[in-house]
């Protein structure tokens, strides 16, 4: 920590602003993701979590603010720089967004070939290894239409990991899944975090994320209004907005009131 070099965040956003349809969706949001850290975005619907995550890789270009990858500011006007950034920033979507006409293997392989210029053979080998990593080696030949939701999301994770990203952005990766399928995806995400992947994840899975997050960021109306360790923010007497919000969620989903860090997955 003492050395300047080590503290350069993998990804850093400064004062991101975005207005959509007259709404101030992001209002001067800043955040830094040091190497290996896991941050979790929570907050009510419409807070701007998805917008923030998509601004981080310029899928939604921010109106103002800057984004730096490993200390180098990204020039948003250069298409080449944007493609280079996106190769190093993996993204997982709520609704998987697998390519429907390609098998699981081809889904993982296609960007390796098109973007990284790998040969079909090498790309195929790597793709198979990535699928094995998420426990889907035996499903490589199946098409999205024949995969369950949990399997689709794991293919999507393998697809992102195959590009060897420096950081992962996850936007509610389990929200579109049936309850019995959530566990298999969370297990993969936990594995990733334990292997040191730098991540920022929007989620409503409070107890799960409390067990692996270094920091919770509570968003409301386009701003990060609270930030801190899960234990701190979720303490019974913390009086934080985060605590109140999480209590409401757990009431709805029937999670235990005590969310001090144990995971029930």
């Amino acid at each position, binding site marked *: 920590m003492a050395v300047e070099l080590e503290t350069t965040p993998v990804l850093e956003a400064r004062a991101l602003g975005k207005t959509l349809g007259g709404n101030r969706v992001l209002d001067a949001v800043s955040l830094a993701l040091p190497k290996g850290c896991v941050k979790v975005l929570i907050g009510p619907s419409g807070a701007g979590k998805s917008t923030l995550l998509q601004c981080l890789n310029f899928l939604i270009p921010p109106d103002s603010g800057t984004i730096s990858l490993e200390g180098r500011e990204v020039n948003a006007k250069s298409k080449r720089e944007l493609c280079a950034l996106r190769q190093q920033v993996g993204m997982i*979507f709520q609704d998987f967004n697998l390519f429907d006409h390609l098998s699981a293997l081809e889904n993982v392989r296609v*960007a390796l070939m098109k973007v990284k210029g790998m040969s079909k053979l090498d790309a195929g080998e790597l793709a198979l290894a990535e699928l094995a990593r998420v426990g889907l080696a035996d499903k490589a030949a199946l098409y999205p239409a024949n995969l369950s939701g949990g399997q689709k999301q794991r293919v999507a994770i393998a697809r992102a990991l195959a590009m060897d990203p420096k950081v992962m952005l996850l936007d509610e990766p389990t929200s579109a899944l049936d309850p019995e399928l959530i566990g298999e995806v969370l297990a993969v995400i936990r594995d990733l975090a334990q292997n040191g992947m730098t991540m920022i994840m929007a989620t409503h899975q409070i107890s799960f994320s409390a067990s692996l997050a270094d920091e919770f960021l509570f968003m409301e109306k386009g701003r990060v209004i609270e930030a801190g360790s899960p234990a701190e923010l979720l303490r019974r007497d913390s009086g934080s907005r985060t605590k109140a919000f999480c209590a409401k969620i757990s009431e709805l989903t029937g999670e235990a009131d005590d969310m001090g860090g144990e995971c029930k997955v």
Partner: protein
Amino acid sequence: MSTPYLEFLRTELAPGLMEGLWTSLVVIVPSACLGAFIGVVAGVLRVYGPRPLQRLTEAYVSLFRGTPLVVQVFFWYFALPYISIGGHSIVLDAVPASILAFGLCSGAYQSEYIRGGLNSIKRGQIRAALALGMTTRQAVQSVVLPQAFRRALPGCGNEIIYLIKYSSLASIITVNELTGMATTIAKNSWRNIEVFCTLGAYYLVLVTLATWLLHLLEDALGVPGFERHKS
């Protein structure tokens, strides 16, 4: 007393129609290819092109879908030679004029199916492709078009079937394709019923063959989620 039908078919009708069939194919195959090519280009431009090009392709589609095909055929054959630009004018023979007319008209309809196919692909998949570092062009080429093409294939196939049938219009600008040959034979032999019923059968066989080929193509491209809906 005239010769029996089979004798007439063997000695006169079939050889004449065979020649016409060949000419028909010379018109149909290039105009189907031209139409498919124009359809894909115009369809992609209508969805992803810059504004001015979107407008331009939309105008093209309205014009060619909004006027009778006979008028278009007449235009390319009879009117084009009178349009001179800098003292030069273009005179097209009947066959190239038909191919141009059918290709342009077919392309206008094909672009509708391609556009529908493109729009049916969820934006999320494009976002996912971009998020992996693909350029917009790569995303369209390797994610959107292959799916849009599969979705558009039944409609595009239908359009090609129509093209086979409306290729008979070439006969009115003196192309001796199937219908042109049949008309000549009918005039000379006075056996209208037999000639035109046989002509109908030829088209029926052509259309059946084309349908079968298209189904083969659909099955070859079919993956789970994109199967041909068997009736």
